[in-house]
């Protein structure tokens, strides 16, 4: 007998979790759309954001002083650091890989995966860090069928919707947005028209990592603190963006929601079958999508010519 209430709760929680994934996925497809870089370290950037908040707000061993930043300031600082990191990455690393083969870029992002992972383990903490109380909101929104949505998920859904709407508006109505679109569709033509490609790529990286760190923070909030499992979100993000179409931001949003629901459905199935299904189900989904419709829902299909 299928329990409607349980399934509804799977759906709602799934959308909540999925909204967090979709924030990170939006960061991913933003970068892919504009620079063509396939970032295998997206989960690690989220991880970095999650750990930075807890370090900044609890104890910041700044030489001899033990500085404590208020929580809100820590959040803002983390997002700003994320954006600054995007700037630095573009300036000192990815600029050298414009026009290099796909493989080199993939390897560079894989290298970042291990750099950030090792760096966080050494410089910040090698263990799970619980979030301060101010970052653990205990309110929730009740829905029919006795289901309640936790605060991080509500925030995630709201923020993800805002981000998608904001980015769409940004791309459509601002000058910078149309410059970004222009360089995404044809870099050379954009350059001829006087667009500074370097600057657009910088903007893309800064935006992407800032959004990703927000996603990482919310993901950490939903589990009560920052742990290294956040890094595993990369592969879920792949499932999300491949389903939505690699270079589509609304696609990434929808893909994230679908992956979140699938994951919760896996958790639900665990009772009947075996544990571990929550991580396998999205992977199987990813493989099926790759085989059946590699360009996803809204992705641009590539036509090859000799």
């Amino acid at each position, binding site marked *: 007998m299928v329990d409607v209430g349980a399934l509804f709760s799977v759906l709602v929680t799934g959308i909540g979790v999925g909204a967090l994934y979709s924030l990170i996925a939006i960061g991913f497809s933003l970068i892919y759309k504009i620079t063509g870089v396939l970032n295998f370290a997206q989960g690690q950037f989220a991880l970095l954001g999650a750990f930075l908040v807890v370090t900044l707000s609890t104890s910041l061993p700044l030489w001899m002083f033990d500085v404590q930043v208020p929580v809100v300031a820590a959040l803002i600082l983390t997002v700003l650091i994320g954006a600054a990191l995007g700037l630095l990455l573009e300036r000192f690393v990815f600029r050298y890989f414009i026009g290099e083969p796909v493989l080199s870029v993939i*390897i*560079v992002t894989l290298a970042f995966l*291990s750099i950030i992972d*090792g760096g966080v383990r050494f410089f910040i903490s090698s263990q799970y860090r619980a979030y301060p109380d101010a970052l653990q909101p205990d309110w929730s929104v009740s829905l029919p069928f006795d289901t309640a949505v936790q605060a991080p998920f509500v925030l995630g859904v709201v923020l993800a919707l805002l981000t998608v709407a904001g980015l769409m508006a940004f791309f459509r109505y601002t000058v910078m947005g149309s410059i970004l679109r222009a360089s995404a569709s044809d870099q050379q033509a954009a350059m001829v028209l006087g667009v500074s490609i370097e600057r657009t790529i910088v903007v893309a990286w800064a935006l992407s990592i800032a959004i990703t760190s927000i996603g990482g923070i919310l993901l950490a909030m939903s589990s009560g603190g920052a742990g290294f499992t956040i890094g595993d979100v990369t592969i879920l993000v792949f499932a999300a963006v491949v389903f939505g179409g690699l270079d589509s931001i609304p696609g990434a949003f929808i893909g994230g929601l679908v992956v979140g629901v699938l994951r919760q459905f896996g958790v639900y199935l665990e009772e009947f079958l075996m544990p*571990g299904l929550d991580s396998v189900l999205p992977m199987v989904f990813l*493989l099926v999508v*790759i*085989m059946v419709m590699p360009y996803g829902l809204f992705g641009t299909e590539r036509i090859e010519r000799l």
Partner: protein
Amino acid sequence: MPSGEYFTSYEDRMGLLRWRIEYVAFALGLPIPLLAPFVMTGQLVSVFTLVFIFIIGVLGLHVMLSYAGEIVLAQGVFMGIGAYTASRIINELALGILPAMLIAGLVTAFIALVFGLPAWRVKGFYVAISTLALQFIAIQFFFRRSEFAVIHGGTQQSLPSNIGLVTDVITIGSATEEYFFAFVVMVVFAVLTMNLSRTGIGRMFRALHENDLSAQVLGINRFRNKLMAYAIGGFMVGVSGALYAIYIGFITPEFYSIDITLLQYVMLLLGGMGRVWGVILGVTTVELLNHYLLETLINAFPEATALEPVFFGVIIIVVLIVEPKGIMAALGQLKEYLRKWPYAY
């Protein structure tokens, strides 16, 4: 290079040893790895055994990546499958190293074929993503769950330290014996890989790598050749995984995570893609670097071992920025420079 064409027959032109100096280098260089274990410290012998084992694995990656151009991110799984198969054959059937190695290779080749199925529809980074997904399923789920013990025979297994080549004839146990065994297997696979690039199959792989559309127009079956590359490469990586398991004597899924994939990519890229010598140079450099770096780190800052992946990441990015074609290309430039020295041209 002196001017004029020196080769008068096809055999001379395509031979593995073409110039007189290459014969001299071969004759002088061959005894070095054979005599080395009697001179080196025990620790270094074991490091070089590991080097040989990794060379076999990276040669498999080399076939898939530099010959056929498939970005396969499932090295860890392939090694893991080889290791678990070898462990079951040695522990339960007691057949010895050689059959274990061969069967491990064949099983891995078969699984690699399955991993290559997405190549039917997609290429490039879609292959990277789908192999990464399969890696994730296999290591995080399949090998970790004891429900599947019927297939993989237990999440953690250990192997005996003395194993015969076939059943229990000629046991391989001491570090020196392992060194020589790994060396012989490595040489066999290195020669096979070199020869593969000279056969029609190797040329078809290259054609598909350079421009798969043109190759298909010329009548090369893309899907079949890609699958063949997966099978050949998977076989080598499986053998390498089997030897790695025997070398360490213990297997657990943590050994075969994405880290080992990344390590092998670092080795391949650092040495230079496309040449067997590049693979050998790359693996040796990385392993020695790894060995000494870890030693220095442990001596200087005992708590800094977490920094090792950071160093590796930085090294690979710097290498890709400075010399994207690897050590082999850098050596070629050095040779050109020395040939003209002291003039600039």
